């Protein structure tokens, strides 16, 4: 009897869905995602949408930081560029939402390429600071380019529509989010097993060696910045179209840190890790909120003690993951998969 999942050639090794088992569970998960809006209330659907935007943004950042090794603290700014591009295109130039999404991604990609230029000369902490500049430059632009961005007042965005149908509820927007999540994750999964994906990994592991092997650092580093920012732009455009408003305060510096936390907790250099990270960073605080509300209602007057404690719990969970599983949730997932692949003969 065959036990385990053995790859006998490179094509098998490169397959996106390596076994029937994987295909079965993925199909089941997809059915769940399709059935979800029919079972969930608007609050859960709101959370699902937020997770979707976070997944797209985190996958983008993981391509840059996890796969190519270029640390970026400008991700929130690129999300902002995409968000404002979409808002301006839709409200000022009357361009359809559907066209505004790829255009927002492209404008963000362009911004990412410009900010990514220093990556050719600097690495590590120095690159962090260089990308941090994006946060301040674009943050300043969002506030002060009032003729375009309407400054601190922000821009109200009409909901997307197809014919007479408006995607103005959590449930209807869920389908748009789901579509872009599938496209984004699917593209990233394909990208990392392509020539470009391997070049990214080679640059991350040792850029000098990669260059000697013939990898054009200029091209691939900027490509990584462009692709990552494209994802950020799309995430931003979707997010503000869902919220129906965009203001400069949607893109604080802490958002960059949250995205970095997502890819670190999820697992650097792993597409599925980005998904886990996004789910973790979005869902856990919400679960803690619900739990603290429940405790608070059963212990009136204790709110002052209980509610702030949720931040301590959340912080401890992140530290706990980093100490006990530095390779992130993706590694835990791999271990669980391996256990079941070899079960019941795991020895």
């Amino acid at each position, binding site marked *: 009897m065959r036990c385990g999942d053995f790859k006998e050639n490179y094509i098998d090794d490169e397959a996106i869905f390596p076994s029937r088992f994987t295909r079965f569970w993925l199909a089941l998960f997809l059915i769940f995602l399709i059935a979800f809006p029919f079972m969930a209330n608007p609050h859960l659907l709101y959370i699902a949408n937020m997770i979707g935007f976070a997944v797209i943004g985190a996958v983008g950042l993981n391509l840059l930081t996890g796969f190519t090794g270029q640390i970026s603290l400008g991700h929130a700014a690129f999300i902002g560029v995409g968000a404002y591009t979409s808002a301006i295109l839709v409200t000022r130039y009357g361009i359809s939402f559907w066209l505004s999404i790829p255009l927002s991604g492209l404008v963000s990609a362009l911004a990412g390429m410009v900010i990514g230029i220093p990556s050719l000369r600097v690495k590590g902490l120095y690159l962090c600071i260089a990308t941090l500049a994006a946060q301040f430059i674009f943050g300043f632009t969002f506030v002060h380019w009032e003729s375009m961005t309407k*400054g601190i007042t922000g821009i109200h965005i009409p909901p997307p529509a197809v014919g007479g149908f408006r995607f103005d509820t959590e449930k209807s927007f869920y389908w748009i989010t789901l579509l872009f999540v599938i496209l984004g994750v699917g593209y990233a999964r394909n990208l990392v097993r392509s020539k470009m994906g391997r070049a990214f990994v080679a640059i991350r592991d040792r850029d000098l060696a990669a260059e000697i092997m013939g990898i054009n650092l200029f091209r691939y580093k900027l490509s990584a910045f462009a692709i990552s920012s494209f994802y950020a732009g799309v995430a931003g455009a979707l997010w503000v179209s869902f*919220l129906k408003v965009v203001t*400069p305060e949607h893109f604080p510096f802490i958002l960059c840190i949250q995205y970095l936390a997502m890819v670190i907790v999820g697992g650097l250099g792993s597409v599925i890790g980005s998904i886990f990270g996004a789910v973790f960073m979005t869902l856990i605080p919400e679960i803690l909120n619900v739990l603290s509300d429940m405790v608070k209602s059963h212990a009136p007057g204790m709110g002052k003690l209980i509610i702030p404690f949720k931040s301590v719990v959340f912080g401890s969970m992140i530290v706990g993951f980093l100490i006990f599983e530095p390779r992130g949730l993706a590694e835990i997932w791999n271990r669980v998969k391996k256990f079941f692949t070899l079960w019941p003969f795991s020895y």
Partner: protein
Amino acid sequence: MKKMSFCILGLILFLGPLSIAFAQQPPTIAAVHPFTGPFAFAGIEGSAAMQDVVDMANEAGGINGKKIQYYWSDGEYKNDVGIAAFKRLYAQYTPQVMFGQSTGMTKALGPEIKSRYKVLYSAYTMTSEAANPKENPYLFIAAPTYAEQFGVLLKYIAKEKPGANIAFFYGDSEFGREPIPAGREMAKKMGLKVVAEEVSQVGGVDLTTQILDMKAKKVEYCIFQGFVSNPIATVIKQSKDYGLNAKFMGTFWSTEKQLIKELGPMAGEYVGVSAYSFFYQDDLPMVKKIKEWTKKKYPTIEYRSQAYMQNFLTGLLFVESFKRADKMKGGFTPDNMVKGLQSIKNYDVGGLMPPVTIKDNSIPVGRVYRGNAKTMQFDPISDWIRMD
């Protein structure tokens, strides 16, 4: 036939209680308070104030015998967390009235409240966008807007020193920048000269550039916006060292005990506008009532802040709107709640502020107070000033 009878019976048993539940939906308030995060000082007080109003109203018989339900959640002063909490509370309790934590949250939810949720809504914010019944009929603020507060201060300055040189000193945030354009226009109309506009981060410590700029432009009055305490205290203290002889003023959120404490002996240098009376003005019947209630329910608490007063007054208006809507056909429907609120005229709030009249979904009235270094309190130096 037997099966069908069972089905119908089942449906009646299932839907019956549901329909009764809808018909008897009690008056419900749900709120998102910034209980943690940078605005927690207001959230902790605000959540207690709303609870106290509800408890007082319920003790007095509720809304025609119907007890008011009150639920709240922490929004951490983050937009996404606040919006999620709003949606969670709405899905769980279907309240007729909701309260939000910030300007950002209010702006983000405004369109949906108008088109979907249709709940009477107020918030900690005093943004003009929440006081625009044409655009946002369900939104209101139980105070003057930030722009109207600027108006109160400018009116006071115009009376004290016509044609004075003014500086606007604001935080680099939505909260800081919001009333500035309206402030410029009002100053121009009142014949005051805005000679300087200084911007700083919240909590900024090195303010030499801004102070020297104001000195060079001979600023006589400096109005702060978008800060709670620092950098206001720092600017006031440092300005003396640099020889800037200006009078310093601020709006609602900075006109609070914390600033007075930080200023210490210089407390008298600060003048602020507030929409409400202070906890120590216990000669006023409503303040006295709050003080007695606090003593009875929370014996260890010695002071209630202006954030408490804001939430308390908002709560009073919620309760009054419920009472008025209850008398209308259909009860607590969204439109009845708005009509109830907008019909409030000369409503006596026991001196918490002058008798309340809702105008354009706000209460455009404020009073100017000066810090007192001896008592560490704010003393009123003007009567109530109306901006309509």
